């Protein structure tokens, strides 16, 4: 079903369209309605898109490779500056050693490991059980990659977004959740991890047991005790340990919404994941005031917005189609 979607995308690709139509197409593409159908149409376009070949590497690709190497160097320099002189050499050595061990460890076992990709659409939560019995709750718009079988020395999965893990005990095979900026190693334990790509704040909260958190760019590790939360800000590169209310951290799993000292913009970002509406607002129209809210499960977007608007005061909202428009009063 839904070959309208393939057809629209195919035609768009082939047609030299006007700027107006391009904007309209892109808006349609990113709208939540029929997002699964659109995703499968995009996947088939992806599969049709040709890969490069080794025989004839184009000069354009060669040039891009040069650029990428340059950017990688710049990033590494940025990270290295953060270490004291005395640490510099050892940090570099450790990183290389870590990367190579990781590389070998993965390479050895991944010969026929098939990876499964689990994606949770907006406004949903997925429960899944991994091959080792570990229970995972995956929050809206989060993606988890995991192998069909955990065969290596570790049980490694890859997370984008937010999830809660109840890891089954197996001391011989540590459970590792990797993400873009950090990785968490656990033996048998329960923890919540939030690593949404758009959010500069990464957090890992331990509910029980013990975990080790390691940042990919650094050699520092943190061992968390139960009820501790490690926060890392990608922009300021600062980390901190918090002691949050565990009920707040696990609220999303019960469908509740808890906001503690967050700006309206941050609130809307969370609401966009939880409800199938896109928020439309001018960035500079929102102040940086911080708010606290708590909503019960199954609160409708209208109820949530009525309360937020009532408290914030100087704005109003209107819901049309799949958009929620925010404008100043």
């Amino acid at each position, binding site marked *: 079903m*839904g070959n*309208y979607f393939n*057809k*629209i995308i195919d035609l768009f690709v082939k047609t030299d369209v006007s700027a107006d139509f391009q904007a309209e197409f892109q808006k349609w593409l990113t709208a939540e309605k029929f997002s699964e159908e659109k995703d499968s149409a995009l996947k088939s376009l*992806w599969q049709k898109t040709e890969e*490069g070949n080794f025989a004839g*590497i184009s000069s354009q690709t060669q040039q891009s490779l040069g650029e990428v190497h340059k950017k990688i160097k710049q990033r590494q320099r940025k990270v290295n500056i953060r270490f004291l002189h005395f640490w510099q050499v050892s940090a570099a050595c450790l990183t290389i050693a870590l990367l190579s061990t*990781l590389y070998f460890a993965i390479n050895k076992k991944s010969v026929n490991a098939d990876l499964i990709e689990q994606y949770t659409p907006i406004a949903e939560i997925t429960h899944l059980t991994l091959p080792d019995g570990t229970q995972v709750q995956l929050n809206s718009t989060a993606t988890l990659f995991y192998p069909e079988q955990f065969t290596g020395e570790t049980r490694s999965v890859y997370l984008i977004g937010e999830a809660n893990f109840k890891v089954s005990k197996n001391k011989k095979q540590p459970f590792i959740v990797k993400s873009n900026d950090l990785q968490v190693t656990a033996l048998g334990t329960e923890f919540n991890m939030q690593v949404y790509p758009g959010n500069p704040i990464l957090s890992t909260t331990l509910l029980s047991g013990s975990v080790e958190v390691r940042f990919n760019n650094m050699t520092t590790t943190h061992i968390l005790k139960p009820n501790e939360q490690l926060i890392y800000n990608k922009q300021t590169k600062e980390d901190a340990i918090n002691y949050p209310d565990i009920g707040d951290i696990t609220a999303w799993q019960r469908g509740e919404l808890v906001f503690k000292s967050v700006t309206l913009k941050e609130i809307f970002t969370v609401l966009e994941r939880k409800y199938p509406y896109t928020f439309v*607002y001018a960035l500079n129209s929102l102040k940086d005031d911080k708010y606290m809210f708590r909503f019960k499960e199954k609160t409708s977007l209208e109820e949530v917005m009525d309360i937020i608007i009532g408290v914030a005061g100087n704005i109003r909202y209107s819901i049309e189609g799949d958009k929620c428009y925010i404008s100043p009063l």
Partner: protein
Amino acid sequence: MDTELYKKEFEEIFIQHFPKVRTFAAILLKSEQEAEDIAQDIFVKLWEQPDLWEKNLVRNYLYTMVKNHIFNRIKRKNIESKYLYSQINSHSLTEMEEFKDPLNEIYHEELQLLLKLALEQMPDKRRQVFEMSRFMHLSNHTIAEKMDLSIRTVEQHIYLALKDLKKIILIALFFIKF
């Protein structure tokens, strides 16, 4: 493993996958520059994640990443420029009556997009004539005067425009029904 080997391994993945990521972003964003930026960002990140270099994983990962990047760009643009988009009133297209179908109600937006795509593909004159006739409801005579064409040419333009539209919609409907 030494750094040279690490680098070589990365470059092989780069040569195989970078053009695909860039092309995919370019055809959806219709901008070579934005596509290049996105593709470079993704591969700079990939350098730090050798655990994702495994054959099957890297394909899934790159697809997810490039899709997220593209969507983020689009969403950011949409917030910056709140444009209004026009609705083609497909009910005014009596010629499209034959496609009335419960499915078309569900896929109303998609049908609209297809119609607009068909219009986008038409030569300028043909599209202008057609829009005047079917959306502005001008008579063939008025259109002929405005555009400085003969009435026969106007009729011919409308006939060809309808043929284009039907071709595109029919192909889509064909796939939906079977």
